[in-house]
């Protein structure tokens, strides 16, 4: 069950596995939601989604997230409130973003327009500080306007919204006051939900399970080990779910979205209190910068800059750290960083829990060492120490919202003019994101000179097997990697 533009709606049976865009357009006949790419790359199908705050939280402000409806499955929206462009304006008044877009010529063909209106509205709603509109709109593509008018409209809408907020009237809070739908939103949605095929015998696999707790999820996995686990659906949503397997939807399990900081698992001798960041598997990209700001000291900015280039706001609000690890993309977004930090992961099944170094998880192209019935639950990230160097490079065809052609993460420290603890990891250079162990070996103990880095860079091809593909040729990839490694010494110089 969902709320749609203020009204409760029941999602029928196997419609639970429809992408939200299909449900809206084909079942609800709301055609304002446009699908232009179907792969979460353009934002035209953006809808606003709010999860009702937990009763216990005492929160009264609803956080409206922009969501790519072509990727999100209806089961993931169980108990959520969906607002489409049809529900944005009132009968008598347009939302500030809509008014500003009209006034500023921010629509041309009009196909991407509803998505922009909703993304803008979400940004105006959730962020009290001035919005960086180029970043806030990076998940929405417009082929007509060249964006200038859209950015002007956003700025104008922001000015209007700020004025209105000063009178205590943010648009969505006024349009859909929590009280009008929250009371019914509690309770039922916290119970587990299993959809089975109507005509199927009881022994047949269920279509989809939305467990109430992690324990229930693990029990379900034990019973249906072939289940397809869906977290943020930013990857699986692109091709759609495999309808021959049960779907286990875990996106809503808040216990998997918690994070904390603990002493290092294995404190190195003599080190002053290294700390480990413990991230629940469902920690969203969106939340990482704030977590890092609190925890990672001088390296937070470096890491946040990388995260800002992963997807647009819609993808970062949906995508999870655990999903990034388990889908095992050869590019890996966060994986090179996690590899250089010697991260490890916790895998739980109904009867056991094990902790595995991330490096040992990869067993080939898009394959991980996950045993039957296991669910990734937590990620342990030893935080870099203040004296260490950390460099993150991402090379892509387009600067923002693009998959890396090559990515490089580097961490090391310098001691008496020598390089120590050199950790290098790359994405896009082989079947999986991986450490450059041979190259690291050449650097560890070498003098801190440009020559050391250059010599190591020359040999880095021994660690990688780049391929030519749609994002670049093998020779380009190798050239970039060599250049980036060669130039790491400058980074060291700069901070020395």
């Amino acid at each position, binding site marked *: 069950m969902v709320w749609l533009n203020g009204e409760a709606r029941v999602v029928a049976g196997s419609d639970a596995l429809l992408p939200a865009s299909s449900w809206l357009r*084909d079942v609800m006949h709301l*055609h*304002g939601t*446009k699908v*232009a*790419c*179907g*792969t979460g*790359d353009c934002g*035209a199908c953006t809808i606003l989604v709010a999860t009702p705050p937990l009763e216990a939280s005492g929160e009264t402000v609803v956080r409206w997230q922009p969501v790519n409806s072509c990727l999100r499955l209806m089961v993931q929206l169980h108990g959520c409130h969906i607002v*489409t*462009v*049809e529900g944005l*304006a009132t009968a008598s008044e*347009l939302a500030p*973003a*809509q008014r500003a877009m*009209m006034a*500023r*010529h921010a*629509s*041309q*063909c*009009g*196909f991407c*327009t*509803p998505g922009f209106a909703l993304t803008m509205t979400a940004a105006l709603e959730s962020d009290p500080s001035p919005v960086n509109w*180029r*970043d806030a*709109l*990076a998940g929405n*593509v*417009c*082929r*007509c*306007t*060249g*964006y*200038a008018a*859209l*950015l002007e409209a956003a700025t104008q809408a922001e000015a209007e919204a700020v004025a209105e907020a000063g009178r205590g009237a943010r648009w969505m809070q006024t349009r859909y006051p929590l009280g009008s739908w929250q009371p019914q939103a509690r309770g039922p949605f916290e119970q587990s939900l299993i959809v089975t095929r109507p005509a199927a015998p009881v022994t047949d696999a269920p279509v989809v399970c939305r467990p109430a707790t992690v324990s229930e999820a693990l029990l379900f996995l034990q019973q249906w080990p072939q289940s397809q686990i869906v977290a943020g659906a930013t990857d699986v949503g692109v091709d759609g779910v495999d309808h021959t397997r049960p779907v286990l939807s875990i996106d809503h399990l808040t216990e998997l979205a918690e994070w904390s900081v603990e002493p290092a698992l294995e404190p190195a001798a003599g080190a002053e209190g290294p700390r480990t960041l413990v991230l629940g598997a469902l920690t969203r990209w969106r939340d990482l910068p704030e977590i890092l700001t609190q925890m990672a000291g001088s390296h937070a900015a470096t890491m946040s800059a990388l995260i800002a280039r992963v997807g647009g706001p819609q993808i970062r609000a949906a995508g999870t750290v655990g999903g990034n690890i388990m889908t095992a993309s050869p590019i890996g977004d966060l994986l090179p960083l996690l590899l250089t930090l010697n991260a490890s992961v916790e895998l739980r099944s109904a009867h056991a829990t094990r902790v595995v170094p991330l490096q040992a998880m990869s067993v080939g192209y898009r394959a991980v060492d996950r045993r039957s019935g296991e669910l990734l639950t937590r990620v342990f990230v030893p935080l870099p120490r203040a004296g260490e160097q950390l460099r993150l*490079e991402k*090379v*892509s*065809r*387009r*600067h*923002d919202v*693009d998959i890396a*052609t*090559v990515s490089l993460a580097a961490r090391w420290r310098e001691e008496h003019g020598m390089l120590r603890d050199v950790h290098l990891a790359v994405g896009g250079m082989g079947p999986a994101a991986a450490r450059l162990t041979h190259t690291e070996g050449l650097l560890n103990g070498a003098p801190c000179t440009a020559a050391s880095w250059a010599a190591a860079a020359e040999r880095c091809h021994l660690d990688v097997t780049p391929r*030519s593909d*749609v994002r670049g*040729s093998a020779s*380009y990839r190798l*050239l*970039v990697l060599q*250049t980036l490694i060669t*130039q790491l010494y*400058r980074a060291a110089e700069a901070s020395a």
Partner: protein
Amino acid sequence: MSHHGQSLPHESARGHVTGSAAFIDDLPRRQDELFVGVVTSPQANARLLCVHTAEALAVPGVVAVLTARDIPGATHFGPLVQDEPVLAIDTVAYVGQPVAIIAAESAAALQAARACVRLELEPIAAPILTIEQALAAQRFLSAPHVIARGNVVTALASAAIVRRGVFHCLGQEHVYFETQAAVATPGDDGQLQLHVSTQGPSETQHVVATVLDKPLHQVICTTRRLGGGFGGKETQANLPAACAALAAHHTGRAARLVYERAEDMRITGKRHPFRVEWEAGVDASGTMVGLRVHLYSDGGAFTDLSPSVMDRAMLHIDNAYYLEHVHIEGRVCETHHAPATAFRGFGGPQGIAAMESIMQDLALALRDLPGAPRHALALQQHNLYGHDDRNTTPYGQVVTDNHLPDILTALADESDFEARLAAIEAENRRDSRWLRGLAIAPVKFGISFVATFMNQANAQVLVYPDGTVQVSTGGTEMGQGLNTKIRQLVAEVLGIEPVTVAMMATSTDKNHNTSPTAASASTDLNGAAAVQAATTIRDRLARWALQQWGLETTADLSRIGFAQGMVFDCEAPDRRLSFADACAAARFARVDLGARGFYATPGLHFDRSTGRGAPFLYYTQGAAAAEVCIDRYTGMIRVPRVDLRIDIGRSINPGIDRGQIIGGFVQGLGWVTTECLVYDAHGAVLTDSLCTYKVPLASDLPAHFSCILHDTEGPAETVARSKAVGEPPLMLAISVFSAVRHALGCVSPEAAQRVCLPATAEEVLRALSLAHVPFPHDDAMQWTHSATSWQGAPA
């Protein structure tokens, strides 16, 4: 107050922002409507031995599976040469070519059936996938075509400096946001009603009628709006429309075909890749004394509009410069790709980018010559068309109203060009990571269809007794603001508020025999026709008013004024009626309140065989100064600053025109930087999603972006003295590519010469990595874009 020059919102702005403006797939489904899809070829250049359809037909819910044998009329179509099969016959040419049509009761049944259509294919030979391969195999879609003047051989022999080179550019995917879409509905007496996302309803009507073997009056094509076109729906909307029509014809039911994005990107043609071999000579002062260019385009598997695109490229290779002795030769190559087609600029961008590359190269060659122009801009200014002499194009048209000398002077000033250039070149010698470049590119773009007969349009204006108006023209609204401008033009004629003028769908049963909405000329043509129709009605009302007020003796209709919603006697303004009352009374008095207007652009002629004529009514002119910043480690480019200045005459709607200018520029920015089409060795396009094909984002808009309308009187012969604005701004983005060349030229001439378009990070880094490797002409002849250097290799 005049409605001209007002920045009224887009006529559908409210519908856009509320999501209520309907596109094809938003139209309600008729109860009997079928889901239609196409089955496409997985191979290029293969014999099609058999299409097995029985299995697909057996899928529950499948109503029809059609192949070429089921086509009742013409099996082939095409705007110039009818060589493109609707559905493949005997052979398949390219990966993605439609082979069969499935019509089903549900999307799921359609999806299931797709996998069940089995194609028996037998490879003929390795597909030809590049211009170079086509040249080697001597495969062409057109005969060589020449436009020439003077004596290039002697001119080059006498030149102080002669340079040779090869310019390459790749194609560009349109990425109109609404994919190709059509609904066909059987109607009365065998008629077929089409709703199609097409730029050319008349052409779509024509193709569908021919394919179904129906007379034209049996097919109606209606288009309310397109979710973007950019040229990609000028001819290429016809195939999906024909497929939907075939399904409707065979089943007697309504049929809807909407391409998915990946399908659209595989099936439809794109902007033409070009290879331009050139040899240019300059004298010691920098005057270009001779130029020889051979242009080759990749037309894909079928002719489509390729010869016309090549013509426009040839007519724009001069760009803004006087070429006394010139030989321009062009030929379209045949390859195993989807047929390349119209795309904003229509060959102009390729021709102009080639010329600007030549200019950048000559500037480098002249750099150390005493007395020669000191930088590229000086060289460009030195060679601009003159006002009174040196003002004839290679094809013989005199360049009048030449604003480019003024535009370049003003732009150099407002962009602080000289000082920034010096600072950038100095900084480039110091900075080991960032490499900057700065360049200006002028653009002179000819307005009118080169095919003279296409420069015609009609409009229908209906005035109702309450004073409201409906207007429909042959021009389609695809976001460019055509309808908004026409609304303003008609409101101005009738002296009423634009809001009382409703723009109606373009439909062939109202506006027939129209040209596609293309060539930037749709306001010029359709606007003029609408003004004429509205004027006809106004004159009838004026005549009626003269009678009404006992002024029959006054023959002068201009005595009756139309303004601010009133009809009045100019000599006695108290004698007045509201426009609505006037309309109601006039209707009672049996005055015809409906009219059609027709416009044909006067004075155009072009003889293709001699390459001589005056094909253009006027030129839209502008220039942009772009700065780029290259990461020497990775080749990635950012564009921190752009200043542009463009002459669009008197703008009817500056808000809309500004959107066209910036939107066009950013689309061009994509073409010259991140938009890179990549194919595999078998000819399948690998960049078939927005995940792999990267169009600009908001964050790619230069942080400093200045857009100035050059203040001119505008041409006397156009509607409201306005100028066309749709295509020209796209070419202003060539300045970005020139800036990349300038940056690389700061490292070495070879680095600049090696870079092909688009300047992707890989392309730039490759050029930088070879900066100090000599680049002799023989190597240049073999050189290609990095994205093609491995695509043609065996897998």
